């Protein structure tokens, strides 16, 4: 048997996870020294309430999980004779996978016959969401683990994500975006455009005056970089900005024709680094 895992940083919620049989590894964030494990400490993510806290000035922190916690997730599967496929958020954005590697190597000594495979989505939030669902779809369609791993080798890099944030102070604090201009902080009215690189990192690639120009930039990028976009899910992720997300969706349909658009709430752990009112689009592309 194969057990599927993904984590909450991929925006997958328990309902979507259940569709494919994914088990969810909860990636925590902390507010006022209280650590919260999504979908462990709450059942439904109230995005509006969470991002309103950030609007009011709360700056959450995020933390890696321990080796022990990974053991708790994986050990029962190996003990039950199951193999594991973990589709996770980018290794390049965290050190949490060092703890996972330790846990896995420990388990492999005890269960040498068991397989542990992983697919690094080289991204976080919406882009990971799209890839996790694609993997789930392939497995549901009857593809083998090895076929899915082979697919991931070439296809992960074909999912691109471009987004803009409202306020760079969250990114600046986490230091997770490269290429930001030297003094860009809170730029009222200026939207930096950020994309997920092939290395699985967030990289700034310009800025636009105003939200409308920023959305036009995203539409233009999908048009230029997109590859067979209508055949794949187009995921529009947002940090409590449903109206802007819909507006972007409409603009995309207007520019590219009918699309399979899915709107996704960005999970609180990733959202802690982005801040509220951010919107991004993930699409099938020639390259990232």
């Amino acid at each position, binding site marked *: 048997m194969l057990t599927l895992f993904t984590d909450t940083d991929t925006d997958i919620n328990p309902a979507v996870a259940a569709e494919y049989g994914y088990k969810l590894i909860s990636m925590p964030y902390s507010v006022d020294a209280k650590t919260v494990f999504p979908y462990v400490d709450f059942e439904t993510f109230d995005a509006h309430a969470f991002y309103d806290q950030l609007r009011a000035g709360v700056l959450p922190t995020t933390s890696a999980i321990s080796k022990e916690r990974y053991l708790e997730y994986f050990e029962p599967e190996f003990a039950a004779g199951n193999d594991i496929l973990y589709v996770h958020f980018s290794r390049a954005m965290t050190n949490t996978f060092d703890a996972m590697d330790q846990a896995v190597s420990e388990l492999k000594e005890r269960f040498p016959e068991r397989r542990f495979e992983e697919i690094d989505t080289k991204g976080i939030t919406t882009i990971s969401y799209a890839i996790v669902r694609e993997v789930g779809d392939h497995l549901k369609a009857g593809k083998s683990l090895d076929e899915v791993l082979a697919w991931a080798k070439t296809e992960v890099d074909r999912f691109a994500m471009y987004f803009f944030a409202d306020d760079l102070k969250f990114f600046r604090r986490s230091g997770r975006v490269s290429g930001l201009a030297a003094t*860009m902080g809170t730029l009222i*009215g200026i939207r930096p455009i950020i994309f997920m690189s092939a290395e699985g990192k967030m990289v700034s690639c310009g800025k636009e005056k105003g939200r*409308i120009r920023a959305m036009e930039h995203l539409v233009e990028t999908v048009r230029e970089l997109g590859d067979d976009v209508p055949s794949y899910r187009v995921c529009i992720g947002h940090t409590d900005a449903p109206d802007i997300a819909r507006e972007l969706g409409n603009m995309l349909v207007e520019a590219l024709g009918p699309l399979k658009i899915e709107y996704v709430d960005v999970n609180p752990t990733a959202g802690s680094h982005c801040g509220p009112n951010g919107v991004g689009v993930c699409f099938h592309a020639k390259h990232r």
Partner: protein
Amino acid sequence: MLRGGAAALNERRQQINELNVFPIPDGDTGDNMYMTIEAGLEAAGGTLPELASAAAKGMLMGARGNSGVILSRLFAGISKGLQGGPETADVRAFHRAMQAGVEESYKAVSEPVEGTILTVLREGVQAAGGSRDLMEYFDLLVSAMDLALTHTPEQLPVLKQAGVVDSGGAGLLAIVEGMRDALEGRAVQESSASAQTPAAPKLDLDAFTEDSVLEYGYCTEFLLRLQRAKVDLDSFDERVLSDWLAAHGESLVFFRDGSIIKTHVHTHTPGEILNHCQQYGEFLTVKIENMTLQHHENHMEKLAPKPHKAFGVVAVASGEGLVQSFREMGVDEVIEGGQTMNPSVQRFIEAFDRVAADTVFVLPNNANILLAAQQAAAVYEGSDIRVIPCKTLGEGYFALANLDTSSGDADEIVRALSAAAQEVVTGMISRAIRTTREVKKGEWAGFSGKSILASGPDAESTLLALADALDAGSHDVCLVFSGQDADPSADLSAALGARFPRTEVIVQPGGQPVYDYILVLF
């Protein structure tokens, strides 16, 4: 030689400032000693006794701070020791003069403390006593002073605690080393950066607020000329005065030279000290500084030393929201100022000092302030100052939003910032204080540059009319900063949004005086 000593001191002035923890950690020993010796240099000339006398007199007049005063007394003693001697001193005569200098220095301090400049001086002179020539004298003097300096933390716990040696002693050692080098024909190169006279103390007046406690009192220094009308100069016993001062203050340095009394004292009530002393004469100079403020400045700088950086930004703004916006956008120093409050050249210079970057970009954000910024840039030598000719807050805002220093090329950055400033349209809403062709007194006027483009019975409707007049709909962003007296409702944002659907409307609290609204279109 004296010049060599001054140059050597100047080289290490900042290091010496940073050592300063006793008696008050005000971080100015190096500056004070340098200004004292510089005053001596300006006065010096002629034969050795003449030179020594003139230098001592110059230092007396220019002495600053504890260490400066002690330094001036050392030279006064040396001068006294050299009077009546040959035009050039041999080593024994020089040693006698140095001993007189030690004696004078100790006399200047009401309660001499060991582990300070006094100890370093005394032990150095003691060790150099048996030298055969001046070269050997200075070699011995330097090495003994160096040794004495390293022992100062054992003698003075406050130094040990701070992990430093005595700053005054370090300053004196620098001077003596410089004199030795000059004697050996090795001149200290004055670096252009440090050869300037120290700037006025960098004080943040806001560091001492309505609720602050006067922790360290005032550093009070003055030169008092005894007056015949008030005292009998011949029989006046200055010890009576010094005893009174010692009882009413701390860190007293006091001496008399003819009819001049030099006093340095730390006190919480400088008025009382001055009133008391004025019964004996009149003041030639008076300097009073709040040491809590000085300490705060130095303490803050030590707590959070600013790393040296390639680029910095200084901007002028007023209003809490605007100041915060500029800060959050990465401005290092925001100078409070605007239409009715034009900052001085000095304020700019102080800001440049605090930024301490190789290149500083300046956003004056007002046509009336541009000139002061340019003047400050012209006289400032510490950094390459580039004034971006932003004439409105909107221009400054958008220029800043376009600041990208990654090229490292200051010229290119200036070009980009100036070009960005040109892209912006700024409008202002303010109440008319007189009737003109376009607006009645008491109504609101909407203007851009010098043209009144809209008027109305209230600020909000005038803003909408101004936005129309400035064709806000052709811009991507309509950013509105509300002033300290404005009360923008949610309707204002909605009304602007409905009028200009393709333009992003953002209303932010700016808190600026004078203008109810500042409209920034880009």
